[in-house]
């Protein structure tokens, strides 16, 4: 079986030359002419992918080039007479832009905090509920809604129905718990925490569902063996359950980080990046610089930096995931 898998990897998904190139030493190193059939398959595969590639080149690669070109221009809709090619000056300007560094810090904090909270809460809930026999289907369905709800509706709902002082549901609960009524989205520090809470609410179900399924599929033998050897509940968790869950935890961290870095609509509709710049993560700063301040050239440079950071981190994380498996 192992060998067959290897062969099929070498030759696409066929094993028509089983026992030719790998088992018989005489044929090793002999350059075989590629059979017509392989060529036919390659043609077929190309035909299958070409529409998507053609499309992505036109609609993605071409605009990307346009973005890079724009980022080397002074292109300000409020001062059109100044438009000119200015080389890398936009990028130099970014380096000295305090607002950029502030938004970068916010992005780092926001991403780390939300992913961390999602993993901890998701894992905690999944562990606590893994032994419950009833209501599993209901829980799975109930937590699904926050993920498929339109982020705009989520953001606006938090802003109005849930967090408005006096009339919001969450504000009321906070008062009942003795925390008191606050301007949740009006106070700079609270606003950041509120936005983090919102994102955590939106996406903890993802972590929860992954861990919930992983726990249900966990092999029971190691746990039983450990119990027979006299391991306590805590030892069982740290030395058996957690290591077995590690692949799922890594997947959750990777996917959630990638999505958190793209977060926009929910924050935009909840706070718009404000008050001031209190919740202005890099996505929002880029948006505001381009479409509120209408400085397209500078916005393009910011977008390029954002693109590099996001894809860089994503690929780094994917590599970690692949090597850990």
């Amino acid at each position, binding site marked *: 079986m192992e060998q067959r898998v290897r062969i099929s990897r070498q030759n696409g998904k066929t094993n028509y030359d089983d026992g030719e190139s790998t088992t018989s030493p005489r044929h090793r190193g002999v350059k075989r002419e590629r059979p017509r059939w392989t060529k036919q398959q390659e043609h077929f*595969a190309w035909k*299958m992918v070409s529409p*998507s590639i053609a499309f992505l080149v036109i609609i993605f690669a071409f*605009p990307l080039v346009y973005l890079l070109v724009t980022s080397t221009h002074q292109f300000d809709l409020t001062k059109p007479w100044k438009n000119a090619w200015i080389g890398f000056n936009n990028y130099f300007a970014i380096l000295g832009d305090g607002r950029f560094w502030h938004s970068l810090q916010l992005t780092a904090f926001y991403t780390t905090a939300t992913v961390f909270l999602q993993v901890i809460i998701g894992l905690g809930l999944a562990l606590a509920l893994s032994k419950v026999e009833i209501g599993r289907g209901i829980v*799975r369905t109930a937590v699904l809604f926050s993920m498929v709800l339109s982020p705009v509706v989520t953001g606006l709902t938090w802003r*109005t129905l849930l967090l408005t002082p006096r009339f919001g549901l969450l504000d009321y609960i906070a008062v009942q718990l003795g925390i008191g009524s606050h301007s949740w989205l009006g106070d700079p520090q609270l606003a950041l925490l509120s936005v983090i809470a919102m994102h955590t609410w939106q996406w903890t179900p993802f972590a929860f569902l992954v861990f919930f399924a992983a726990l249900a599929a966990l092999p029971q033998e190691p746990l039983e063996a450990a119990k027979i050897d006299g391991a306590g509940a805590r030892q069982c968790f740290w030395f058996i359950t957690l290591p077995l869950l590690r692949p799922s935890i890594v997947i959750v961290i990777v996917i959630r980080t990638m999505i958190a870095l793209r977060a926009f609509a929910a924050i935009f509709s909840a706070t718009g990046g404000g008050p001031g710049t209190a919740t202005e993560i890099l996505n929002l700063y880029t948006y505001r610089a381009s479409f509120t301040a209408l400085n397209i050239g500078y916005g393009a440079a910011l977008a390029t930096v954002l693109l590099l950071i996001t894809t860089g981190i994503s690929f780094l994380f994917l590599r970690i995931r692949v090597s850990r498996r």
Partner: protein
Amino acid sequence: MLIEQSKIKTIKYIRFIVALLLLLLVIGTWLIPVGWIAATSFKPRTSIFTVPPTLVFKPILNHYARALRFLGIVASIRNSLVIALTTTLITLLVAVPAGYAYARFRFKFREQLSFFTLFTQMAPPISLLIPFFVILHKLKMFDTYIGMITIHLTLLIPFSIWLMITYFQDLPHELEEAALIDGASPFTTFIYVMLPQVAGGIAVTGILAFIASWNEFLYASILTGRKVQTVPVAIFSFLTTEETLWGPFAATGTMIMIPVIIVVLIAQRHIIRGLTFGAIK
């Protein structure tokens, strides 16, 4: 011995109660905010602004009537439907064959092409907003269906290809081998042997593509004007004015949720798998 056993029983009982309470807490945390939107949409204005928040009220439909009559919501729902359905259809036509090729075949530049597709998937949408904005204006495609659909495809095609790959990879190779021995061409094999096997996967990909396009806000907010404005953009108009129109907002929010919630209830198990990129089988 007897006491010991009854003690164990009590502990088990308490544990069960605690777990049950936690279960209710989890369901409440994630369901109540969603239910609250729906409840608010039926509340008379006086019941929306009460302290404490109330669930006792006489349900009315005024907010729906107001939302549908005055603020162009009907047109935006139609726009959203046209854009989301067309985008989903084209996405599937392009992504399903590509997913099959990446999952099953070896061909020149395969690694580079799949890397490129992954890259398009990872790029934050906002980074391409400026080029899209300028190019659509230059091509006179700003605020048109075709422009918006094309832009939404950039979000959905890479994602759908990756999802379809995971579904095709799950199928046994014997399927194609059998078809090959019977003399079927690759294309015949794809259409008649493979497609029926991944029908469920195609459905999930389609559903998630529809939801993503239906909910999309960033591109729609900048690249549409009055003519093809979608619902997520239109809903903003209730809250940007000085007057807070919570009722009509909640009514529109509920209307945005309805198609998504119906779909989720029908296909929840499959959707969980799709949402987690096959991390859950």
